[in-house]
């Protein structure tokens, strides 16, 4: 014989759990937006109370900062969205950098990725680059930027570049010294309507430029700019300057004006302490807004550190959207951690 069991309702945990929410509302009300309130959970109803705190925070626009044992710390309001604070052009994945090879005809003494004629070629390859371009376009990337070493050392560069410009506007970084013969013919086969060339020139006269990049390199770069213009390409000039020269830019801008570089295409950046550079500004994952960068070895945080293990993100280039999402996730986490540290260590 089966004896039917009398259904017995368990004592409801709801009222005591709700008390935590009342404590929380009162605590949050005592601190300004951005401040923290802590509440203690009842050990007997810890899970129910924590679930309720989570639900209340989600519905009320507040944010759990930490749960340690029976103590929950909640921020009044949500922490600022680090992505919303960025210029749209800085949002990770708004553009994607690709290192096409790494070997170079020059051995600049500040090269951030140690490129040189002796550097081993690490080519991204036509197949991968085509997939990168295709997935980048699908992922909402607005621009591709190709850099070397010196990309014009690649015999299939025209096909590589065209696979990118078929998908997205593209910028190709070059020292501008190799525009002759077969390489000039490759340049001529590129899409002028979708491709911008970015040539490195570091000074208005040969001295400083050649001291970093080799004797005669300035004159060849300037001549390369003339050739590119003659071929109908838009040309940007990017200069890399030590911090102590960043205040003497007027003569340089005037020079670039004379060779037909529009002001919006005159890019001057500070020397980074990376690669073979023995000085320069320090760039870390914490201090750099990421720019998704792909090399033959995988995905890096930023093009300026594409051979530094500390800024290696993942070996998996594909799906590219996942790589972009991972960099975005890490950026948000870094910014939130930095904001949190600033809150805990006020200066005054």
């Amino acid at each position, binding site marked *: 014989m089966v004896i039917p069991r009398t259904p017995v309702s368990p004592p409801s*945990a709801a009222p005591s759990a709700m008390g935590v*929410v009342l404590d929380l509302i009162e605590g949050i009300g005592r*601190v300004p937006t951005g401040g923290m309130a802590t509440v203690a959970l009842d050990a007997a109803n810890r899970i129910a109370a924590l679930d309720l705190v989570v639900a*209340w925070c989600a519905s009320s626009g507040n944010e759990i900062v930490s749960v340690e044992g029976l103590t929950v710390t909640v921020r009044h309001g949500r922490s600022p969205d680090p992505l919303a604070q960025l210029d749209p052009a800085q949002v990770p994945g708004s553009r994607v950098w690709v290192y096409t090879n790494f070997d170079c005809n020059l051995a600049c003494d500040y090269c951030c990725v140690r490129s040189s004629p002796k550097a081993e070629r690490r080519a991204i390859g036509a197949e991968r680059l085509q997939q990168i371009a295709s997935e980048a376009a699908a992922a909402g990337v607005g621009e591709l930027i190709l850099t070397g070493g010196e990309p014009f050392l690649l015999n299939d560069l025209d096909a590589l570049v065209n696979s990118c410009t078929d998908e997205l506007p593209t910028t190709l970084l070059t020292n501008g010294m190799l525009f002759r013969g077969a390489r000039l013919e490759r340049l001529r086969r590129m899409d002028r309507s979708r491709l911008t060339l970015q040539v490195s020139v570091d000074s208005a006269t040969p001295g400083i430029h050649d001291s970093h990049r080799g004797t005669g390199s300035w004159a060849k770069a300037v001549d390369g700019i003339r050739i590119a213009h003659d071929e109908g390409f838009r040309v940007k000039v990017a200069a890399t300057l030590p911090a102590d020269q960043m205040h003497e830019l007027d003569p340089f801008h005037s020079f670039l004006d004379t060779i037909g570089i529009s002001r919006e295409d005159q890019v001057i950046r500070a020397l980074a302490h990376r690669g073979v550079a023995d000085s320069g500004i320090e760039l870390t994952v914490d201090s750099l807004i990421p720019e998704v960068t792909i090399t033959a070895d995988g995905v890096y945080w930023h093009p300026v550190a594409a051979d530094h293990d500390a800024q290696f993100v993942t070996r998996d280039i594909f799906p590219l959207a996942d790589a972009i999402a991972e960099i975005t996730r890490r950026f948000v986490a870094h910014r939130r951690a930095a904001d949190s540290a600033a809150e805990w260590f006020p200066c005054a």
Partner: protein
Amino acid sequence: MTAPLVIGSVAYSPNVVPIWEGMRDYFAGTSTPIDFVMYSNYGRQVDALISGSLDLAWNTNLAWVRTVAQTDSACRALASRDTDLIFTTVFVARSGSGFTSLESLRGRRLVLGSRDSAQAAILPVHFLREAGLSEGDVNLTRIDSDVGKHGDTGRSELDALRAVLDDRADAAAIGINTWQAIGRGELLPGAFESFWTSPEYSHCTFTAMPSLEVERADPWVANLLAMDWENPQHRPILEMEGLQAWVPPRLEGYASLVKAVSEQGITARW
């Protein structure tokens, strides 16, 4: 340079300072700059308004009604929050308590918030009276934990809810804002349920004395109403102050409180 309008506000929350600094920054970019003064309670703020120390006072509904009473209706309401025009009082109890109407409170224990809270004390008694219940018909408990601030802190209403959870009362009367803050009973269905919601009434409003010229007041109101929820500079201020738009006041929405104050013999000044 135009002299700033001086606005009084009661310090009911730590957010009041960032709210008013944000308002001051906003109005600095308009034709009607402002400055602000903080008061610890509405009584002192209304005194300052009437004495001429303030051009405007950001008043609760009770502070407005008291200002009207002290000035023989000479004061003016200039603007309110959108949320102020649709304020309600909610009667809540533990889920499953069986309350169905105000009448079902007869002989039961009702906990009220601070005695100067329109939403959690004065109007609830008025609504009971309208439902045919005198104070003797319901066992009333008052929790005066934020007197002076007219219930703005919400603390007395949270204390009232705790009293219900702790079985020191059967039901509580709270403002719709507190009911929303605890999730309207949807967050934890087993905890609270509402069983009666009042008709809508008006809550806070900017109050001016007749001495504030229309030529100064009207442009200020126009600038206030121009604050835009979609503007990222304005939105944090509006969010903290609990509105999406500033709107003209709805004076008929104060009628129930005027009647309640009269019925209950609440003095015009304290």
